[in-house]
């Protein structure tokens, strides 16, 4: 039940956010092109993503590993 509520909540947030989108022209993307605005984790953070995947039961949806390799230490 709680899980369904969370999934519905995420879907609502995504839906509302994406509904309110405006078309941004290429010449208006000066802020969006800032390197801190990249929609990826930083390269230097890859190690943390890996050890978090080992030390926590949950992983994925962040560009990190979700399979492969042992990670058993």
């Amino acid at each position: 039940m709680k899980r369904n509520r969370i999934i519905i909540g995420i879907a609502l947030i995504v839906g509302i956010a994406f509904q309110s989108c405006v078309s941004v022209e290429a010449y208006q993307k000066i802020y969006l092109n800032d390197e801190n605005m990249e929609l990826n984790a930083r390269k230097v953070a890859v190690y943390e993503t890996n050890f978090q995947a080992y030390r926590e039961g949950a992983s994925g949806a962040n560009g990190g590993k979700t399979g492969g390799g042992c990670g058993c230490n």
Partner: protein
Amino acid sequence: MRMQLKYWLVLVLAGLTSMTSAQETFKELDETEVNFLFNYYEQDGNNGAVQGGRGTEELSNVAPSLIVNIPLDTARNLMAYIGFDKYSSASTDRIDDPYLENVNLSTASSSDTRFYTNINYQRKNSAAKVTQSYKAGVSVEYDYTSISAGYGFAKESKDQNRELSLSGMAYFDTWQLIFPTELRGTDGLNNEKQRQSFNFTSTLSQVINKKLQASFSGELVYQTGRLSTPFHRVYFNDGESNIFLKERRTENLPDTRFKIPLGLRLNYYLNDYVVLRGYYRYYYDDFGITANTFEIETPIKVFSTLTIYPFYRYHTQTAADYFKPFGQHELTDEFYTSDYDLSEINTTSLGFGFKYSPIYGLARFKGPFSKKTGKVTKFKSVEVRYADYTREGNNTNDPGGGDLDAYSLSFNMTFTF
């Protein structure tokens, strides 16, 4: 006169055409970029799974790696990621120590090295706004080998404000099973088991307005094969108080696992000095783990060349159905583990990073390819990141169980050729 005009017209057109094609031919390629990365990681806790959920979890890891990004032409790109992890682990030292007493014992299993490499070939069709990528990788350590292959497809909208990407990865792992010495039986170390993981990811990235963009990721992960770690001991509730006589077996988990992580990333350009980067993940798997993860990072531009970014991450998860602390599993349990990575925990990660990237780089010099390419090598930027990690157990009947402290220090030096 008319003939002459025609002649000049043809000449001008020909000239213009040749200029256009010359510009296309000599369109500048992106630079080859090389990242030298390095990480030092250290952890300590008192719930080593090798010892059945008790004993040291002390571990240190040194991990240098190299990412090379080579534009082959204006449409094709090749990326290689190579590195190794050199770790020393006090808990794996206990695999050959059945009585868990020899604190100063040193065996070959106390340290190991994992080598890995991943290759990603990408081809972009600018007219169709489609990018396809082909991935392959291999990872090798003493008792474990993993081979991976994958394919990715991404389609951008006409106005480049939206992108949908779909990708699949398959991992084929081979594990040489090393059981604790007293549970090794007659097979010794001559056991091999397979594990396969299949991962399907879809990501929708969307520009919301001039200062806000978001991405939503959904993954399906299916794992099959040997999912339990052979050298993890589990002690049972058999009424025996003497640890030497207590019933113990190696960890046993189902041979399939299905995971669904859903991630939402939201970046907002607050002003010329501050950017807000937010991340949330919901996670579910059929081992019984449900997790929520929040992360916020605030890059602050101190100068145009220097950015510092404090960050905070909070993670909370429920325990796997098969987890119980030391000595609490029933002898009739089908599946069992005392690995606190699968227990009920809350973790926090607090840290900061900084990136220094002057417009003309930190240094410029003639590199190994300068003669051939006519370009100088530029030491473009340096980035340092530190994270302090705390894990707190939240397990009933085991106060304090699962606590662990760790820290991580990483560097990234970027060069272009």
